[in-house]
């Protein structure tokens, strides 16, 4: 059970059951859709970006515990952050879930996703919202797929 407990940490279970910032953002000025064809997870990330800062962020979508919790915790992590800082955070998060975490990388609550690195097929679940966030920031058209 210990590997499973590492994956499904309390904070992840909490955010998957009660996701934060899970609603359409009425004054969003950027948004993107993400899709993981492997499991059918879909997420839309809404952003309000002002003067290079993520003023507000939310998401909507249906998915597994890992992808829902990741989206929820991501919104908390990037709210109020500058764009470069957000980009850097994604880089560190990606390193964390793929088992290539940088030494001493500051990730706060996102550290809960460390256990994902033991489950390679679940990396896409953990990063779907982040990829979608990145697409929204880059204002890429169309749906972002994990494939």
């Amino acid at each position, binding site marked *: 059970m210990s590997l499973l407990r590492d994956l499904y940490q309390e904070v992840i279970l909490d955010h998957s*059951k009660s996701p934060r910032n899970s609603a359409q953002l009425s004054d969003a000025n950027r948004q993107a859709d993400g899709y993981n064809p492997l499991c059918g997870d879909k997420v839309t990330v809404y952003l309000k970006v002002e003067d290079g800062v993520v003023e507000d962020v939310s998401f909507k979508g249906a998915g597994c515990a890992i992808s829902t919790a990741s989206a929820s915790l991501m919104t908390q992590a990037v709210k109020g952050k500058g764009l470069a800082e957000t980009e850097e955070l994604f880089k560190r998060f990606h390193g964390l879930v793929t088992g290539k975490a940088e030494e001493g990388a500051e990730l706060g609550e996102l550290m809960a996703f460390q256990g994902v690195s033991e489950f390679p097929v679940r990396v896409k679940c953990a990063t779907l919202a982040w990829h979608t966030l990145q697409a929204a920031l880059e204002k890429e058209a169309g749906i972002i797929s994990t494939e």
Partner: protein
Amino acid sequence: MTTGQSMTAAGSSSIGESRLDVEQIRQDFPILGQQVNGKPLVYLDNAATAQKPRVVIDAIQEYYQTYNSNIHRGVHHLSQVATEAYEKARVKAQRLLNASESREIIFVRSTTEAINLVAQTFGRERLQAGDEVVVSAMEHHSNIVPWQMICQEKDARLRVIPINDKGELLLEEYERLLSERTRVVAVTHISNALGTINPIEQMIEMAHQYDAAVLIDGAQGAPHLPLDVQALDCEFYAFSGHKFYGPTGVGVLYGKGDLLDSLPPYQGGGEMILSVSFEETTYNVVPHRFEAGTPNIVGAIALGKAIDYVTHIGLERIAYHEDELFRYATQQLSGLPELTIIGTADSKASITSFVMDDIHAHDVGTILDQEGVAVRTGHHCAQPVMDCFEVPATSRASFAFYNTKEEVDVLVEGIGKVIEVFK
């Protein structure tokens, strides 16, 4: 290793007995003895692909080690041996399906290729603007997309037989869809996502009232039910080798001989021709007309071995054992209040799809995997089915004749773990 040496399972579990000696049979499948994540492997993903008995694995090795050669070409010894083995495999498939002639058996890559072949030959030749192709709401994507493609090209219309909330086709709606415009009915024998066994005999008869041709997607049907294509009277029946305990990359398309004779080739190339000049090409006879290029020779031969193995045990006995297992699994899983079975048709086979309250299938799959239990999670390449039931994905346990009640118990215990993690 000589061929036919290790037909142990069926041989030792005497044929007269109605019950399978499952423990003995399991010895024939080398993969089943291993541990996964520190637990004995419980392989319940048979609808995705089945495991291979030793006779099949040995046949592959034997081919490459002793008679690897191209077929229908060389006058040399090895080519003759390979050709004979390949054509023998065709006869084995013919007998399995009870087709009247071996030329009615076309070796393809997969069920998917078989359906594409029919869509691109029969469909291309026979469909006209305004014609209709009837599929069902429970089809695998591979029995939807090839028809969508040809319908688009021919300006024909794809019609869909709806299903009820048990996952059964609505036959009265099917009757209503059929008309003089119906050219093809393409329907699955057993639903890969729901386990429903469709009443194909009746459906074929109904289609024939309107002179429509019928293709049966037998990817899930062939490994689990005894078949007789002459009695069924379907125009086409397709199945995959790898779900039939054979290798990947080979499949079978049965087609009625006269019909196949009247169809244009699928792909151009070697083997499918009689003579070629730059002015004109004469196509080969059936089935070679539909087998352009060097086929999956070893795949067909090894599938032949799988057919020997399965038919030696007997599909009736296999169906009986699997049905018992399936009923036991359904009973055990139905007892869990957190779990809902998707697909509760009166007639079902060896597939149990389920969803769990507030727990996504993907999480179920990961936790079960930690218990050594392999199930499929996702939309099972049947997104329209998921839409019907308004679920994004299901977990699916699918059984084969080498599975046991004890393995079902491990699955149920594993689901207990899932509930524990998420409680």
